[in-house]
């Protein structure tokens, strides 16, 4: 597998993954919605995110992804890790699609309930067949578009900002910061994704991590500020606060920005979903030889899981509970990469 994507493109893929989660963030299900405390909590997650990247950078130095490093040790170990990461990536894509489907069917178009989750999966399958290169190149433009949309919403919402919504940090009580911190941390799965993605990265992974952290920090802060300053504590009772904020801003501006927001969410969801399917297909490479079959299997699983999560009310707690995400982050960003570093091959070539 020849390394193909640049540091900038890698950063863009990670930024999309992170921003999409923030845009579809729902305090009705997640813990959070604590106004200015959320911003502080998000800032506090940055050092932890930086820590998450240490095993990834060490793996990169070793010369391969978590999967290839484990294969270097033994086939059984490699297959076990590859299957685990494939399932994790499929789960991540499913959650993204399911959350988007919940948003689409509850807030935007109720008539899309049937195929809302299917289209991104089917198209992502075809994108996965074209390889990570095309997706990575497209991600640069998508990031520019998403950031432009976030900035536009922030700028047009300026006249409707209410600084009284920026309440003091102790307003929400003592535990709010900790709960918000955990909630924010549960939305950062990028290090785990990067453990597999680094197989395709050409050079300067550290640069990619720094770009990702700085750009995503600024953008997510802008998203949180827009929500806090426009709707304030109202975000507690709205299902998707950023969408509500966009709707609120539209009343004050000359443009209706909700369709624009939906547009950038859709393209972000598509990119994230296709990256996850491509990487899951890569993980399954040693077990299933045919690219069509392994991409198809991954896409079908994403479809099935997202359907189960979005349709079944019982799936909601799993979808939105930070505990599940935190456990997965701990396993796939720390435990397995460290295990790969300790027990895996000492040196492996990317191809």
């Amino acid at each position, binding site marked *: 597998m020849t390394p193909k994507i640049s540091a900038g493109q890698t950063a863009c893929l990670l930024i999309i993954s992170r921003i999409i989660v923030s845009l579809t963030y729902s305090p009705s299900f997640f813990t959070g919605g604590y106004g200015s405390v959320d911003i502080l909590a998000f800032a506090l997650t940055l050092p932890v995110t930086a820590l998450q990247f240490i095993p990834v950078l060490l793996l990169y130095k070793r010369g391969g992804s978590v999967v290839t490093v484990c294969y270097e040790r033994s086939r059984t170990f490699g297959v076990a890790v590859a299957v685990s990461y494939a399932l994790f990536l499929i789960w991540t894509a499913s959650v993204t699609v399911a959350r988007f489907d919940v948003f689409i069917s509850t807030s935007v178009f109720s008539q899309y309930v049937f195929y809302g989750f299917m289209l991104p999966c089917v198209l992502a399958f075809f*994108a996965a067949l074209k390889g990570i290169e095309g997706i990575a190149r497209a991600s640069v433009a998508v990031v520019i578009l998403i950031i432009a949309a976030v900035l536009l919403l922030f700028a047009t919402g300026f006249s409707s900002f209410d600084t009284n919504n920026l309440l003091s940090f102790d307003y929400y009580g003592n535990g709010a910061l900790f709960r918000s911190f955990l909630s924010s941390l549960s939305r950062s799965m990028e290090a785990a994704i990067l453990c597999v993605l680094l197989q395709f990265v050409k050079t300067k992974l550290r640069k990619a991590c720094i770009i990702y952290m700085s750009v995503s920090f600024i953008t997510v802060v802008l998203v949180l500020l827009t929500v806090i300053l426009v709707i304030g504590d109202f975000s507690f009772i709205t299902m998707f606060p950023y969408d509500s904020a966009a709707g609120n801003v539209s009343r004050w501006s000359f443009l209706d920005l909700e369709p624009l927001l939906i547009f950038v969410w859709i393209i972000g969801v598509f990119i994230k979903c296709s990256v996850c399917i491509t990487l899951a297909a890569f993980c399954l490479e040693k077990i299933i030889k045919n690219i069509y079959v392994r991409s198809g299997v991954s896409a079908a699983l994403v479809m099935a899981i997202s359907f189960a999560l979005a349709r079944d009310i019982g799936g909601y707690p799993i979808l939105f509970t930070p505990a599940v995400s935190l456990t997965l982050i701990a396993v796939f960003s720390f435990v397995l990469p460290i295990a790969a570093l300790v027990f895996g091959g000492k040196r492996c070539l990317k191809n």
Partner: protein
Amino acid sequence: MDSVFFYDFKESLLDNEDVKFRHFCIFGHSIHLVFLDSMTSKTDLGHLVIRPMLSATELPEDEEMLLEYLENSVISAADTKVIYDIEKAKQQLFGGCALIFAGNLSKVLYADIRMYPFRAVSSPDIEVSEYGSRESFIEVLNVNISMITRRLKTDTLRFENLNVGSTTNTRVVLCYLEDKAPKKLVDEMRKTLVSSNLSEIFEAGSLKEILQKRENTLYNTLGMTVRPDVLSSKLSEGRVAVMAEGSPEAVFAPYLLIEHLQTPDDYVNRPYFALLTRTVKLISIMLSIGLIGTYIALAQYNPEVFPSSIIYSIMNSAVSTPFSAATESVFLLLLYEMMREAGMRLPKSMGQSVSIVGSLVIGEAVVSAGLIGAPTVIVCALSAIASFITPDLYNQTSVLRILYIIVGTVSGIYGIALLSVFLFVGLCSVKSFSVPIVSPFAPFDKKGIRDSLFRFNYKKLGKKTADVNSFTGSDDEI
């Protein structure tokens, strides 16, 4: 005594009335002259071949040396050569050369004295520019080659002759600068052309599909031009071109998406104006593809995005016309395509009549009769005008436009967004002979960006040419 070689040759051409045979007996040697009545210059034949042979004071006694002697000491045509293969001899004959068979020899001497009518070099009908060269390629390959050579006076300029097409035996020329074009690219194009098992080639355009056979894609991965100035600049950037006899176009590769936006005028106008025109072109490409589909999606599913006065107009036309916006759009596009075809194929005078009938009679009548709403007509017209701005993308825009209409009708802005990003990922994954077609934007290339959507001042741009094959993301770069 005449050779079997000659009789075999003559036998295969007996039914062709255009082939003329003449027999001479000079100093005891039997010499046959064969030429095409339609493509050989009789004056040159007389002055450069027949008269020198008849007025020769001596000829060698040894028959084996006869053709070489004629070539070196008698015939005064500029291009002569002895060949040993009947098929090659036929190729030369049908190319307009005169063939000289002597005695019992199994070889033949050809003299290039071809002459056939061809049109003069004129201004291009397509790729029109306000400033710059007024020359365009013509159907005669040698004239086209001369136009390139006049512009690129360098010893690294190469023209490789190839014969493609088992029936037509078309002369195809591979053209490149040896110090700029990667050997891998030249070899790949040569190999593809030589190994193409085609029977007929009438124009360079049909070679496009053969050369891009590995790229099963919607987008152009090979460019085509009729302008020698454009082709010369492409060659100087490391591209490889293919020209064919009988075709006034040249095909070249690699071809990037940004080249659809560039025109020769951009380098004469000020850089800020070039930025403006290229931006307008980019917007027009997007409008021509997605405007109708997005309009239908928004009008049908999200009318709230429009200002209230426009909503009123849309709703008014929706209730006063019998069809949906999608049906109206499809009908208008069909009408437009029919008129375009009619206008293109008919003589110019009648073509104008078609435009008048289309725009005034049909356009006005369908709105007045309440069959189609005015907003739909405006949107379709705007989309059609936008597609005229980049005519070389017409194939793609007309197909994608219909796809957008279908998706916009079925799934609104949701489907439009998904289709857009899907097509964009597809576009980003396409390569034109190892170079990503979205270069120099993605992956970003510092050298290439100097002449992309905006262009640098010519003082900087003219100092060093960016080699397209070394852009970031191309296989050579890796």
